[in-house]
């Protein structure tokens, strides 16, 4: 595998293999010294054109635990602001000797465009509303860890919120379906894509109808600008219809899991403290982020090297 730009290009086998590899990485992360020399001499460049804390730190931590060198490209101080084109920027960093770019950009398709301009591997850390494959891997791994199931056959996963503008939703719907889950999306029609009849999902506009049958309840972040764009009248009304309240938590199955990709909008989609939810996996999602991204980096850059040894 050369790049990880979408869940699609990973395929079911690639997805399962990466989740298995993540187990090894999780084991490394349990060690007193959580570091191995597997990617010594390799260089990973973070190219974040959009704000991100957890994803960027998670990738950088993952690279360091595999002994790769990292460089961070900070857009606000970069020559992009001096009119340098993205292609020139990528070419310049490539010339410095980079094995992988971790790319986040507000625009759809940037990871594919960049991969035409460099020989390095491209990892998509989020492109517009399109894909965020490592988040989907994290979420699959987290469900797998909690349920001890490697396949999600028969599992009812409900994704709630702004599906239309969500790269997390697009990657997760693909990944969850690949593993056999039944996915339901819940949102007002204004927050659904214009035509999703070809997606492997059920659609429901009423959260309360699906709460009792959900095995996984996946809450998405609602951005406040959706009001000014006319997608929802007020945050209050959205929260009323689609927010996770104490009352709704009470309707969940005992075994049901609650997830959120973060950062949470407290008082909007999360009307309660996640720690009040018995089976909230939100902290596990963050913790697993490092292991999953180690697996991805090792898979793309670790050809020939082994995971053994101490750094």
């Amino acid at each position, binding site marked *: 595998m050369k790049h990880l730009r979408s869940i699609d290009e990973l395929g079911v086998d690639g997805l399962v293999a990466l989740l298995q590899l993540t187990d090894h990485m999780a084991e490394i992360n349990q060690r007193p010294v959580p570091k191995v020399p597997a990617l010594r001499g390799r260089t990973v460049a973070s190219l974040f054109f959009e704000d991100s804390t957890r994803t960027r730190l998670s990738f950088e931590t993952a690279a360091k635990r595999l002994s790769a060198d990292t460089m961070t490209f900070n857009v606000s101080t970069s020559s992009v602001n001096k009119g340098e084109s993205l292609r020139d920027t990528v070419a310049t960093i490539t010339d410095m000797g980079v094995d992988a770019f971790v790319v986040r950009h507000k625009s*759809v398709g940037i990871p*594919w465009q960049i991969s035409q301009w460099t020989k390095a591997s491209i990892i998509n850390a989020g492109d517009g*509303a399109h894909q965020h494959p490592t988040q989907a891997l994290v979420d699959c791994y987290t469900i797998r860890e909690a349920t001890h199931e490697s396949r999600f056959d028969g599992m009812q996963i409900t994704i709630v919120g702004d599906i239309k503008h969500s790269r997390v939703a697009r990657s997760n719907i693909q990944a969850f379906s690949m593993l056999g889950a039944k996915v339901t999306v819940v949102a007002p029609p204004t927050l659904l894509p214009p035509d*999703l*009849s070809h997606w492997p999902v059920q659609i429901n506009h009423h959260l309360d109808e699906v709460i009792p049958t959900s095995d996984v309840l996946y809450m998405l972040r609602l951005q406040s600008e959706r009001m000014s764009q006319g997608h929802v009248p007020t945050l209050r009304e959205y929260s009323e219809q689609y927010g996770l309240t104490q009352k709704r938590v009470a309707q969940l199955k005992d075994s049901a899991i609650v997830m959120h990709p973060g950062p949470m909008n407290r008082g909007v989609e999360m009307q309660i403290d996640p720690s009040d939810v018995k089976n909230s996996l939100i902290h596990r999602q963050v913790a697993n982020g490092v292991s999953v991204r180690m697996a991805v980096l090792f898979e793309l850059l670790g050809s020939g090297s082994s995971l053994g040894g101490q750094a």
Partner: protein
Amino acid sequence: MSKTVVIKGGTIVNRDSEIKSDVRIENGVIVEVAKNLKADVQLDASGCIVTSGFVDLHAHLREPGREEAETIETGSRAGALGGYTALVAMPNTDPPQDSIAVIDFVREQGKRAGLVDVVPSGCITLGRQGETLAPMAELAHAGVTLFTDDGVGVQNASLMRRALEYAKGLGVTLAQHCEVAELTEGAVMNECQCCTDLGLPGWPAIAEELMVFRDIELVRMTGASMHFLHLSTERSVELVRAAKRDGLPITAEVTPHHLSLTQELLATYDPVFKVNPPLRSAQDIRALKAGLLDGTIDAIATDHAPHPRRDKEMSLDVAPPGMLGLETALGVVLGNSELEIKDVVALLSWNPARIARIDAEHGRPVAIGEPANICIFDPDLVWSVDLERLASKSINSPYVGRTLRGKIRHTLFKGTPTVIDGQAQK
């Protein structure tokens, strides 16, 4: 004084005839149509169609203002290589074509290049701002017959009504880019399943159709004539068909790319496929072709829109819309429609010449006494579009690397060959 030229061995296609004959041209005029003619310059046309030079209703020549993308000279050369003898220059230049000074400059630059007639269109509104009317009477007196704010439609219905009323008094035609801007904010591609998958903001068909509908009704009310630019949806074709049935003075065009390429190409993430209106569905293509066959759509126009390479190396949402079209139009049309050669010539030459009101010089029959604006093409020649060989200053052709059938062999502009054997002569 141009030399005597003979076109030898081709098939002359006119509206009401199709004959094998040579053609002799002197001083820019066809002087003889007969067999076995001879002259100083002989152009072999065996196996080729000899017909009137093409007229493009929709070319962005970028000069003045964006000469990095194209100049009137390079655009004219691209046009000549595509068989064109006249190009209607779109007014979204910088400064825009809303004053005599700019109109005259564009026309003069066209004459300096001397490869095609460059026919400047005028803006409907001052600066294409959609706020106040451009000095249409002044521009009409300077010879402008087609007015448009192409790129942005005239959004304000009241202003469009006034523009139509004013245009009627001047006897000129307004051309509308049909797009209700509120429905396409940030839009990158057709609103469809592919757009759902890609998470890109959609450009819904109804944004075009609502404007087509509004302007049909404004034409019905005012009686002024209107030309619809680059129609792209099934329902737009139906609306225009019904309007024509009602006898309204409406004409319409479609681009070669909207007849040949679909929305799914955006999944390559290559901004070369970003265009406005966007590439649509296979079903829309079928409807557009039906519109060509039954005369609902009068013309094929390129919407030739050069952009420098760096602009098309930006992301899909940021890259400007538009593709090259002049050099590939014929091949794309021949390969993507069930049209007879005669229909193709009607759509590329006779009808657009009439719409642009330049049919005294262009879109004429190949006959004695007629001006020698002629193109000669091999309808069966298979060729591949080579980026290195494009005459345009830009390279944003969606057909690069693709194979087309049908290619211009020679073009004559006012009796002088501008293209011989596929090579530009200057």
